[in-house]
């Protein structure tokens, strides 16, 4: 069985269409991010408290809110999750002063206000503002360091122009995934950042496979022009790119459907990232290499012209 046999798609010819699509997606992403005042960060980064409680008997969100307003948490975000019969609620409050123990205050209040309706604690997460800020910085640093590491490795193994293509494609992937999260008003948790880094790793993997083929073809087909070599390489690797994306997508979709609430956003980020990453390794990374090369050629020819005129 084979999906793609002897394809002759002129990827380089249609690269402008790719640029337009990417530019549109990036603009939409940035606009959404600006309108929402940046990505919606979860309490892992902002600090705050989140409780996941399953009540024994039915209770409504407004009853819970009434109870919480007695202790000054009337503005808490209260969301029912799971099946209606499960009576499971996620209660979240914003960051507070260091050392305030919102989780316990809320637990105590609910126990007192609903004496006949016991609840089971599914999870409690309390993050101080300080550690939240630290985690945020660590996450940004982690993304930057891995980008730098990739830039260095690819410059070493290939050429600098390839590294530029790869890193631009990665920025492209992360910005669009962030944008989609922002559009869907989903929260960035620590796990989602991990997913972003995985996307970086995955997308680079795809890109390197294509680059590798370009490098090989550059040696074999010395007379061909760069656009033709890139086109040929993309067509030769398209089958593998699609198959691998497919197998990875299969497992991630399964994870999204069956993995449960805890890793829902994580697997969603991966799904988006894999799709975007596959697209960008074909339509962004390699064309950028070409653009960079022609820019350099132009400069070179200009400088030779200057030399000649002298």
């Amino acid at each position, binding site marked *: *069985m084979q999906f793609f046999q002897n394809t002759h798609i002129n990827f380089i010819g249609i690269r402008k269409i790719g640029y337009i699509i990417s530019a549109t997606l990036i603009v939409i992403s940035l606009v959404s991010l600006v309108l929402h005042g940046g990505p919606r960060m979860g309490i892992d980064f902002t600090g705050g408290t989140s409780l996941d409680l*399953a009540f024994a008997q039915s209770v409504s969100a407004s009853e819970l809110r009434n109870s919480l307003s007695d202790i000054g948490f009337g503005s808490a975000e209260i969301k029912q999750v799971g099946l209606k019969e499960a009576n499971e609620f996620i209660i979240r409050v914003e960051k507070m002063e*260091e*050392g305030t*123990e919102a*989780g*316990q205050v809320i637990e105590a209040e609910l126990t007192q206000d609903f004496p006949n309706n016991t609840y*089971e*604690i*599914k*999870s*409690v*997460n*309390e*993050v*101080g503002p*300080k*550690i939240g*800020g630290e*985690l945020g910085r*660590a996450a940004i*640093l*982690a993304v930057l*360091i*891995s980008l730098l*590491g*990739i830039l260095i490795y690819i410059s070493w193994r290939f050429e600098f122009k390839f590294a530029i293509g790869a890193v631009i494609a990665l920025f492209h992937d992360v910005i669009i995934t962030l944008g989609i999260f922002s559009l869907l008003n989903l929260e960035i948790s*620590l*796990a989602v*950042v*991990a997913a972003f*880094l*995985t996307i970086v*790793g995955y997308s*680079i*993997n*795809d890109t390197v496979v294509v680059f*590798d083929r370009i490098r*090989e073809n550059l040696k074999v087909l010395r007379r061909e022009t760069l656009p033709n070599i890139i086109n040929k390489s993309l067509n*030769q690797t398209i*089958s*593998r790119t699609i*198959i*691998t994306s497919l*197998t*990875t997508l*299969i*497992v*991630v979709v*399964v*994870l999204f*459907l*069956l*993995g*449960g609430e*805890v*890793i829902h956003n*994580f*697997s969603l980020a*991966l799904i988006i990232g894999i799709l975007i990453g596959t697209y960008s390794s074909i339509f962004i990374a390699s064309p950028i290499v070409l653009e960079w090369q022609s820019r350099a050629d132009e400069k070179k020819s200009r400088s030779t012209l200057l030399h000649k005129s002298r």
Partner: protein
Amino acid sequence: MQRSYIVKVVLVLILLIVAGYSLYPTFQLSGLNRKETEFIDKIDSLTRLNKIEIDESLTAGDLEARIRKAASGDSLNDALASAAELLDLSAKIEKIEKRAIKRGLDLQGGTYLVYEADLPQLLRNVAKNKDDRLEDIISATKNTVEQGGDDFFSVLEENFKSRNIEMNRYFGRKGQTNQDIIQELKDESQDAVNRTLEVLRNRIDQFGVSEPSITKQGANRIVIELAGVTSIQRAKNVISSTAQLEFKLVQKSDIIWSILDDIDRVMRVKQKGDALADSTVTQSQADTAQFASGETAKDEEVSLDDLFGEQTEEVEQDTTILVDQNTFSDKPFTALLRQIPGAGYIAVPLQNVRAVQRIINLPEVQAVVPSDVQFHFGTEATVYGEDRFERLYLTKKEPELLGETLSDASVQISGGTQSLRAGAPYVSMELNNEGAKIFSKVTGNNIDRQLAIVLDGKVASAPVIQTKITAGSAMIEGTFTMEEAQDLALILRAGALPAPLYSITENTVGPSLGRDSIKRGANSAVIGLALVILFMIIYYKAAGIVADFALILNIIFIFAVMAGFHSTLTLPGIAGIILTVGMAVDANVLIYERIREELKSGKTIRAAIDAGYGRAFTTILDANITTLITAVVLYSFGTGPIKGFALTLSIGIIASMFTAIVVTRLIFDIITSRYAIKKLSI
């Protein structure tokens, strides 16, 4: 088959055997855990105890006593029988657990807490004089650090410098340099964190957690992980209560003997049945208890059931205890204990500790122990000869002195005295006025007796009182190593912490969510794996089967490496494995696509396979190394759950390179060399 293949096949087989060996405990453990839950459920249903209480008393060693209080009649007997089996089982689990994959807190339920030393408060506490300027500097420092600034102390030094204020106005001695003062303050904060660590480690047994983890993170943070503890409130109550330091007199030896004697009598009665009770009582009164010495004991291993006079079914190695054969039938309790010459405590061989705890907690035994006597174990095990022992002390119940009366304790180096050679460390402690008065009375009245230093119910040390101490300043001598002396001083100072701790992160996962996560994670993994396997077979036919074989091998290797390093599996970790499944086939896809191309260009099967593997190799290497870069960065920057993800992902990437490049190649080579294949099923 060619020679080189045989070497490779043997290599792969050896790896598989090693993997199997490394995975066996994990495999065994899952069965035992299931059994344990069954027993706990059973006891839960038979008694008034709930699961948490059962769990707690399992570690505390008083399960039997509590069951007796919480049940009656037939259900009591059933519950006791289950309890005995449960105890055996949990001892076994404890042993195996150290060699198995750990489940993360998010999978088994538990509490994760991060505490930080309150450095601003520390400064306020140690400052010589306090004014608005100092307060201003402290709060400015605090703000800068919270905005993502540098290390607290370097910011502090900067702030003093920029205001042109010498630090010695507030800290240290006159004329001392800023640098020296900063160093001293750093030492002070380190000391505070270390003392707290010591206190917490000592206390953590109360939780009934099999593998509690208390670690220092960075300079002034403490990370506490308590698997199975799901009430933050309870955890924090134990953690944040101040350490209870008491000084208690150790009972005189004749009283200790007679108590041990009484316990022996009770146990003998328990063993032989009530009918014989009277006759044995008279006999034992004439015959005082005596220990076997640590060296001469004729040790014999017997089953716990022998001791408790219950039906013995199967004597298993893990549940045996060490008793002195000479005295076992006559003195069932003292037979479990050992005497070490010159030691001021009773030595309990480690494997007997549970049994001794069980006996001490038996209601019958409690009835014969005088009400002013208390049993205390030592803070840590001691080594004598080749064996390890827990120290057991019998002290007065009422403390003579409380830790609050202590003002300071430190390690000093002896200049050489009658009893202490020069250069030997000793611990000196200072008491406040009130403490000095009491201490003078206690030491005066009890010369030559031992005074136990008890921290949170455990004896740190029990020095002998040599003279009456009136000045409120005492020396504790002993054959301390420097480290031991420091630990003791640390414990003595634990009463009042100069830098309070506050929690900066708390995370609790309930057991039901943990179970749910495991189930969901396992389901997704199995279904995802099945789909990928199916896809590969449909798309690549026979070659797909080879790739699937490599995939399964890959997963086995991931788990084996995790078990080998006793790593923690978290839910994100499972996600990492699932993602690896998707990505692991990539290497084979690359190779197979290449082989197909080579076949199309008219190469022979052997040549196509050679070219496919050869050409795909650099691609696989480059692609995987870049992915590995991000995984490693993720591991070093991430916290708990993210580390778990990065770990499985990294192991998976490396394992997939091995299985795809070496193992599948081997299979192709063997097949093509043995059979004359005309058409490759790919």
